[in-house]
Every structure is written in structure tokens, then in C-alpha cells.
């Protein structure tokens, strides 16, 4: 097991370094520097600015400095547009918010999706099953950027129950969480249902039933664990898509998470902030897929490392 973790890290760390270097090169290749403005700066000012931010160093030195700053000090450097704010400050302001509603949405999607899928599988071919299947097909075409306007339309404009945006108490969390989790809930429900159906028809479940275990114990103790394997391997990609979806939530509900900073910096061409957020998301993704793999290995006794 320990060797497995080491081997996974041996892939994860080069991936992260590659991501950092790649996004740095992208920024370097971009036409126009960060100080290119409509009114051209005097050359002396430009030279001073470049010297201050280290932009007159050779390329390899800039890369090494940048990577070293991130690895050693967790420092993503200054923002090029807002001179008084560093990338770290911008991320620190938005990240807790993203983490709050993202975490809740993730838990909700998994909890509701799994229980919906299990219920549908146990009551196969009843109205409950058909509802669950219909819901999960429907939610495929309702990604977050379609859910968000519809939710605002119904709950804010028509019913007036929920605030249409902003960030504060739990009442502000409801719509972002629903918008973000719906399509994942549906996918998880569909995956759970089909794998549960497969497990329920396998031999060890027949044995468990034959020895007279109550149905509850059969499902919870014998069927649920093997049925969770496909769901767990789905969690990795789901996490990535969810973090991407948080960009839409931040834009539409003005929740103030890092997604907003990302789009703003994309529109302002504030490369430092864009890179910082991209690298942060990449690191989270790699970390999460590592956790998912460990979880998988722990649940599935057939996998040996």
C-alpha cells in the first residue's frame, strides 16, 4: 500500500510541475506584456516595472523563480492588474466560499444520488424506479449554467423565496448547491442503480439471502460496498467538473468564490491570477484523484498493489 502511494506520487508531482511550467510558457507566449496599455508607457517606466516584477530576467530564471516561489513559499506572486493585491490574497478571499458551497454540493450529490440509485435498484420497475431513471436522464441536459437561470426564475422571480445572489447565511447556499449538484446527483444515481442491479444478481447476494439474512442487512452489509466501486471511480472526474462548474455559480449568483476571480482575470488578461487559480485547481484535482484511488483500493479487496 505504501509503495502504491509512492508510485502515485511519482506521477502526481511531475504532472503538477508540468502544469506549472506549461501555464507559465503560455503566459510567456502571450502577445503583449501585462503592462501593455492603450496609452503606451514611457520606456523608462516600462523597464522599471519589468525589473520590479523580474520580467527582464531570462526565461529559465523566471520559470525557476516562479516554481520555487510556489513550491517553497506557496507564493503565486503579485497580481499584474491590482498592484496592491497578491494572487495569494485574491485566492484566500474566494477559496473558502468556493469550498463551502462546493463541499456541501459534493456531499449532497453523493448522499442523495446514492440513496436514489439504491432505492431505484431495490424497487426495480416500479414508479419510483421510473421516476429516478427519468430524473437522471433529464438532469443530463441540465448542466449548472442551465440550472442557475431556471432556479433564479422560479425561486427568486416567481416565488420570491430565495435571494437571487450574494453570499451570507445558509439561505444563500441553497441555490448554488442545487445548481452545482443536480447533474452529478443524476449521474451518481444512474451509476449506483446499474451497478447495484448487477451486484444484487450475483452469487454472494443469493447466498446471503439463502442463509436467511434480513433484506436490510443484505443490502447494507453485502451489496452496498461492491456496488460503490463504479461510483467511487466516477468521483474523480465529478470533482473536476464540479470545480469547473463553480465558475458558473460564482458568475451567476455573485457568490464571490475563486471562479469569479478567474473569469475577471481572464477578461482583464491578469495572467498571474489565472495561472495561480489554474495551478491550485490542478493540485486539488491531483490530490483528489489520489484520495479516490486509495479509497478504491481500500474498498476493493481484489486490488493488490
Amino acid at each position, binding site marked *: 500500500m505504501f509503495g502504491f502511494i509512492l508510485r502515485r506520487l511519482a506521477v502526481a508531482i511531475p504532472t503538477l510541475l*508540468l502544469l506549472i511550467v506549461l501555464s507559465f510558457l503560455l503566459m510567456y507566449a502571450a502577445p503583449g506584456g501585462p503592462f501593455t496599455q492603450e496609452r503606451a508607457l514611457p520606456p523608462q517606466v516600462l523597464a522599471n516595472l519589468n525589473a520590479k516584477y523580474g520580467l527582464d530576467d531570462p526565461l529559465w530564471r523566471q520559470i525557476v523563480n516562479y516554481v520555487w516561489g510556489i513550491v517553497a513559499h506557496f507564493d503565486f506572486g503579485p497580481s499584474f492588474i491590482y498592484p496592491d493585491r497578491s494572487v495569494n490574497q485574491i485566492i484566500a478571499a474566494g477559496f473558502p466560499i468556493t469550498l463551502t458551497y462546493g463541499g456541501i454540493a459534493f456531499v449532497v450529490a453523493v448522499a442523495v444520488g446514492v440513496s436514489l440509485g439504491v432505492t431505484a435498484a431495490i424497487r426495480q420497475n416500479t414508479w419510483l424506479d421510473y421516476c429516478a431513471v427519468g430524473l437522471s*436522464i433529464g438532469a443530463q441536459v441540465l448542466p449548472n*449554467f442551465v440550472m442557475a437561470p431556471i432556479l433564479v426564475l422560479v425561486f427568486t422571480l416567481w416565488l420570491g423565496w430565495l435571494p437571487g445572489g450574494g453570499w451570507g447565511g445558509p439561505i444563500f447556499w441553497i441555490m448554488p448547491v442545487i445548481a452545482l449538484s443536480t447533474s452529478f446527483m443524476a449521474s451518481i444515481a444512474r451509476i449506483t442503480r446499474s451497478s447495484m442491479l448487477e451486484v444484487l444478481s450475483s452469487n454472494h447476494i443469493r447466498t446471503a439471502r439463502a442463509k436467511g439474512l434480513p433484506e436490510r442487512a443484505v443490502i447494507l452489509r453485502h451489496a452496498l460496498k461492491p456496488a460503490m466501486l463504479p461510483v467511487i471511480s466516477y468521483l474523480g472526474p465529478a470533482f473536476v467538473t464540479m470545480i469547473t462548474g463553480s465558475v458558473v455559480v460564482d458568475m451567476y449568483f455573485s457568490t464571490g468564490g475563486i471562479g469569479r476571480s478567474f473569469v475577471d482575470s481572464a*477578461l482583464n488578461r491578469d495572467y498571474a491570477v489565472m495561472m495561480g487559480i489554474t495551478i491550485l485547481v490542478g493540485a486539488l484535482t491531483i490530490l483528489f484523484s489520489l484520495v479516490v484511488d486509495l479509497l478504491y483500493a481500500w474498498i476493493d479487496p481484489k486490488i493488490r498493489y
Partner: protein
Amino acid sequence: MIDSQQMQSLAARMSETEVKGRSPWADARRRFRRNKAAMVSLCVLALVALFAIFGNTLAVWSNEEMDFNVIGQAAQLGAPSLENGHYFGTDDLGRDLFSRTVQGTQVSLMVGLIGAAIAVIVGTLYGATAGYVGGRTDAIMMRTVDILLAIPYMFVLILLLVVFGRSLSMLFLGIGLISWLEMSRIVRGQTLSLKNREFIEAARATGVPAWKIILRHIVPNLLGVVAVYATLLVPLMILSESFISFLGLGVQEPLTSWGALISEGAGTMNYGTLWQLAFPLFFFCITLFAFFFVGDGLRDALDPKDR
């Protein structure tokens, strides 16, 4: 007495009927035709395609013209009506939503199809090569795919669009760059199970070069899997493009796409102009639905497990 001529024609008929056996493809076609959801979806797709191709000939207004009667009063006067030729109403600037939707449909479908086409070509060749060659080459090629898959592609795509300018070709390139990864994995898995079969061995024994075996003998046998996956990939590409356009980072005015139209409609719905959201959303949803159903139908039709 035997009429030799009659016998000959009988023999010819018999050999002909024998030749006309049911191929696996004919079987698959039959299974697909029996799948009602998939057939209906295919019709829906055909209608959406017709809408995209011939919609402009029905439109009274062009997509760039502004109706000066409507400007500033889109909520009151811009509603869908047959009289003034705005079948789907107008947008906030008084532009005809019908022709804008036609244009958005064209762009979105094109992004989906081109993205899927790149995935099919690159992913199939890459995966088949990795799987067929095997060994260290395979390990390196697939490890590269693993690493690329771990990168949060939507963020990198936006980075690409910002750095190199937001243009349609950049969007195609960016979406195509990432779409083939998953495909190459699937194709490689299939190739691994194909390459030890007798017909490949026979080809190798007769001295067919490796690239020819991949192109002539492996790729045609992958067609079923590739077709299914490509159909399921088109809606994902459309979703990605719409996502980016929704954020205002995708196609630029005067070009538009479903995502951009949905974004516009969602932004103005407070003013009671619900049709601006409803029409693009309707086309978006039915198209995605149809692609998913056709993909599922194809998978059921081509899946040998089901036979």
C-alpha cells in the same frame, strides 16, 4: 427429365440467398430501428440540422439587423409574433432571435461535430498505435494521456483562449486538443483484445507492415466502439462550448452560439423577456437529449453482449 436450365437458375438463386446472409451490421441496424427513443431522436436531430441549414431562408430579418421599432422596448414589442416576422421575438438590442438562434445552432453543432471528429481521428490512431505496438511505447503514450487528463482542462482552455485570442478556430483547436484523450484510452483497450486474434496474426505472417495492419485491420474493427463514443462525445463538446460561451469567453459577437444566447436570455429575464431564454434553451435541450438517446441506442445495437 431434368430441365438443366431451370436447375441452373435455382442453383444461382440458392447461392444468391446464401450470400445475402445477415451481416452483424444489418443486425445492428435492425436492432437500432426497433429502438423507438433512438429513432425519434434521430428524426429530432435531422430536424435540428435542417433548421440550422435552411433556417435562414425562412427568416425575415437577418441576424445583424436591428429592428428600430423594437429597440428599447424589447419587453413590450419584442415578443414572438408572426406579423412582424420575429417568429422567436427579438433580443434586447432588437435583433431577430429566430435568425440568431439559427446562427447559434450552426455554430454549436459545428463545434460539437468538429470536436468529435478530431477526437475520432486523433484518438483512434493514437490509441490503436499504443495498443498495437505495446511495450514501452504503450506505457509512455498512455502515461502521457494520464498526465494530460489530470489537468483541469476547462481552466487551461480558457487560458488558451485568453492568451491566443478568442476566435472560432482557437475554440475548435482547444476543444479538439482535449477531446481525444478519453477516446484513445477506450480504443487502446479494444486494440489490446484485437491484436492477438488470428486474422492479425495472419496479416503479420504474410508480412504486412505494422502501420498497414493498424489502418486496414484494426481500425475497421474498432468502428462500432468509436461510433458509439463519438455520438456521446458530440453533446459533451456542445456542453463545453456552451459553458465557455455562457461565461462570455467563447465565440465573439456578431457570432453567437447556444451558450451565448442562453447567457443573454438569462441576463435579461428579469425584465419579462422570457422567450429570449426559452428558445435557445429548447434547442439546446432537445439536441443534447437526442444525441444521448442516439448514442445509447447505437451502443445497445452494436453491443455484442446483447446478442
